[in-house]
């Protein structure tokens, strides 16, 4: 049974994500300080910054899991502070800070989340994801018995269960070996190409950002320190890699002209 309230259409032409003067202060610490940006539909944007730069807090506020002290967040044209439930079925996320029930098997976990997201053809969807993410042999194993790399693939399967239009990834390859990390990146690229989804990716892995992102927003101490395509940032800073740009910004060696 489903008792549905009347649906208001989301703004079809609005950017996928719009953030305006977003600020989060915890007592004396300002974690995010008047951050503004918008993310075009179908793009992959990297939120780049060191530890404590405000990446996770920004993503948390975009998801509505963290309430901003001030500012606005819109996702697919919907105000996340007032009406986030209108778009939650069209979004998803993956984060190293959350996990899935350990005693449930991978299949059971995906089934529960599939039902929460209202997926009609759930068995087929789980089969497709299992095939795409090489989970077929893991489906009937308890999630708690998986290796870090396997868990990441399961978390990615959960994040893709509803084929989200907006996918938020918080350090999706943190603590993975290079081979698994590369495998995950390839899958993110494939998903984006196939679905046209918008992806916002927080990372402090420069190679990952260079490879996946059309655009990079660099955060430093909760503020936007740079916002351009990887190529533009390299040109602007006169560097060969984003890692060097990152170090310049982090250590205050140079400023973007």
């Amino acid at each position: 049974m489903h008792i549905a309230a009347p649906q208001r259409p989301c703004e079809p032409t609005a950017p996928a994500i719009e953030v305006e003067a977003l600020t989060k202060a915890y007592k004396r610490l300002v974690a995010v300080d008047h951050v503004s940006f918008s993310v075009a539909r179908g793009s992959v944007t990297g939120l780049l910054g060191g530890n404590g730069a405000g990446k996770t807090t920004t993503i948390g506020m975009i998801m509505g899991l963290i309430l901003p002290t001030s500012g606005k967040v819109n996702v697919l044209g919907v105000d996340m502070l007032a009406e986030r439930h209108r778009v939650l079925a069209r979004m998803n996320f993956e984060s190293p800070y959350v996990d899935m029930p350990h005693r449930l098997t991978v299949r059971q976990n995906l089934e529960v989340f599939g039902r929460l997201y209202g997926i009609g053809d759930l068995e087929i969807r789980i089969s497709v994801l299992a095939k795409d993410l090489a989970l077929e042999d893991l489906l009937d194993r308890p999630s708690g018995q998986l290796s870090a790399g396997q868990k990441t693939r399961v978390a990615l399967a959960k994040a893709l269960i509803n084929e989200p239009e907006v996918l938020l990834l918080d350090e999706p390859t943190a603590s993975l070996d290079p081979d698994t990390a590369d495998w995950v990146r390839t899958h993110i690229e494939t998903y984006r190409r196939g679905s046209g989804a918008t992806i916002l990716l927080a990372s402090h892995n420069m190679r990952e950002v260079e490879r996946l992102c059309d655009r990079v927003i660099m955060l430093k101490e909760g503020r936007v320190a740079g916002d351009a395509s990887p190529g533009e940032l390299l040109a602007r800073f006169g560097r060969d890699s984003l890692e060097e740009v990152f170090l310049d910004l982090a250590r205050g060696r140079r400023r973007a002209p």
Partner: protein
Amino acid sequence: MNRTPAEGLSLRRVGAMLRRYLYLLRSSPPRILDLIYWPLVQMLTWGFLQTYLAKASAAAPIAGRLGLAAGTLIGAMLLWDILFRGQLGFSVSFLEEMWSRNIANLMMSPLRVGEFILALTAMSIIRLSIGFLPVTFLAILFFGFNLWGLGLAVGFFFANLILTSWAIGLLCSGVVLRYGLAAESLVWTVMFLMQPLACVFYPVGVLPKPLQAFAWMLPPTYVFEGLRGLLIHHAFRADLMGEAFVLNVLLFSVAVIGFRRMLLDARRAGSLLQTGE
């Protein structure tokens, strides 16, 4: 892709959460054993105590008799278990999300707070039934006390006690959500704070006068007084059940508001992404 809209109350999402808890229960025999073990131990302890007191009282001169009607202690214990296990059934299901660091996944999904609460209440009944039902039948077998023989009154007792247990469970869950697993011990102990004032095993009149006023603020007090009235005087006190229900509606409303408030505070504090101690 076939995707149902996220707005409104969805029994499908409630069902998804129930499925999640039932999968968990099924995967863990110790969890099931735990549901039966303590109610059984409690029933046996209080049953034997009741038997001993009844025998000792019968042997005493008339003036010194305790006047224990058959089943007052064991009946009170069984009803206490509804209250205690109902709250645990609610709160432990919630704690499972905190232990597995799954709460952010749920809060980010289309699951609504009301649906989450509904699933927790349903799980509370399921978990309670697994432990409670067999023990009531064993009470007949061991001590000849038939709770079900009290008829419709059992339904009123149950409804009031389970409502209180959900309200307390919801408040505890809110505190854990807000302050993390450091506040977990509240879940296991809070009901024992209520036990002396709710006059589970003795009449309200036993309490000092000032405490009696507090006792009558607690819905379970009315239920346990009602039980004793039924067993000792063979009279069902509908007035007591009505008063308990009014208090329960108030308490549950406060709990829902409190839970929502603490969820808001957790979002404000940024603790949903950092569940743990």
